[in-house]
């Protein structure tokens, strides 16, 4: 196998990444790897995750309607000015608003990297109080439904009161 970079020397470094059966491979020769900073920790320009990532960004996602309408050059984050084309080249966002600006295109990318598109972990205590409250209400509503189905109305009433209380709290936040 020849090096993907120079196409001249045989590839001796192989990088394979498998996420849920999606395979990404990299095959390069030692001299191209050295040129990219591989193996010398601390060099700027290190052959990094970002360059691998841009490989993942460079694909068409059929079925995404918003996608075909605009070219990557014309999708731009208003806040920091980064275009989607630039993002897919460097593999990094410019600011937190980029996540909104490129929202239509992010799901396939995040699916490939993480096999998931939404957060399921820690929530900031102070700024995330609202979100925590909303999540709790959703959870209680599901429980409420179960009680109603099982005709356990006493418990259901307790839950209903708790939900109202949380909704009042949420409105104040």
């Amino acid at each position: 196998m020849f090096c993907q970079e120079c196409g001249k020397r045989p590839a001796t470094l192989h990088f394979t990444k498998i996420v849920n059966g999606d395979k990404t491979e990299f095959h390069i020769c030692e001299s191209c790897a050295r040129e990219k900073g591989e193996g010398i920790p601390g060099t700027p320009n290190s052959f990094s995750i970002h360059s691998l990532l841009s490989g993942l960004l460079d694909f068409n996602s059929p079925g995404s309607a918003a996608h075909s309408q605009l070219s990557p050059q014309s999708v731009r984050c208003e806040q920091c000015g980064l275009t989607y084309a630039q993002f897919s080249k460097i593999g990094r966002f410019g600011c937190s608003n980029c996540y909104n600006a490129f929202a239509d295109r992010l799901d396939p990318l995040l699916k490939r990297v993480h096999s998931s598109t939404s957060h399921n972990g820690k929530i900031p205590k102070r700024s995330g109080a609202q979100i925590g409250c909303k999540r709790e209400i959703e959870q209680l509503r599901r429980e409420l439904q179960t009680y109603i189905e099982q005709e356990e109305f006493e418990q259901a009433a307790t839950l209903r009161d708790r939900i109202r209380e949380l909704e009042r709290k949420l409105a104040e936040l």
Partner: protein
Amino acid sequence: MTKHRFSEDALSDWMRGTGPDSDVVISSRVRVARNLRNQPFPMLATSQQAAEVLNRLTEVSRSGKLDAYGRFDTILLSDLSELDKRVLVEKHLISPNLANESRGGAVILSENEAVSIMINEEDHLRIQCLYPGFQIGKAWTLASGIDDIFEDAADYAFDEKRGYLTTCPTNVGTGIRASVMMHLPALVLTQQINRILSAVTQVGLAVRGLYGEGSEALGNLFQISNQVTLGQSEDEIIENLHGVARQIIEHERAARKRLLEESRIRIEDRVNRSFGILSHAAIMDSKEAAQRLSDVRLGADLGLLKEVTPNVLNELLVMTQPGFLQQTFNEKMSPEQRDIRRAELIRDRLNGKNDHGGVER
């Protein structure tokens, strides 16, 4: 306390103690990435914006809010020499990225060096906690506690759907990277390592060398970390890593036991040969040093070598790195000169001598 202590002592305090399962796991680390709302990420920040972020975040330690977690010192990267930076990288206290590319970069270090908080790295805030041995859950508890203190003082960029927003989409969500540094000589010797590592990558974990991304697995040291940060909770991520690492520990121990039973004399030969070379050689390049030190560590863990303690080996691992050598001997060196100095330093340490290069300690 000055910054010099951080760059002169090879061992961080946390490394002096031994943690659980330290025959296989050298250290456990959790890093959490956070950004401030309404500020461009460091890559696109102007110098003034970077300075604002620096000021807001260092204020947290200046105002004493971190005191519950020990004494902290704030070090501006602009105050450090290239060599100081390199030494901090070799000690894993800052990342190469912070050392080389940051603007308005700083690190807030705890006195025992178990906590290092990087500012204006790839993200505004990166909290890193390191423990000796296999204590990954403890590292996450500590990192999460420090995270809460910063969150109380600054508005984070957080999105209900995507979680904590980060510069790189590979960190979004929890922003957590948990890793364990493992010494796996027996799995390498018995040629099981590739099979095990490829299994590891199939359950969403990544394997790297001693110095992280893009570094070689020298000295049979492997860093295993989570790849996925979105969709799983922090506890799931930690448990997943914990479970897999636990299995690797057992495999490594079983392989060591079998090596001792089936080819004891060959292991003894290998261990003692490496110990002999390290205690007598006059030229030692870093690759050979890493391999020989791995043999000696294996010998010490198997009880074949009584002369060396794991402490000394942890220390040599860091001390024989290029930046640290130059710091110790207080001179700039060519690679050839380094190999000579490295041999000298290892000889002295293994023979119980401690005074080299005229550096006071």
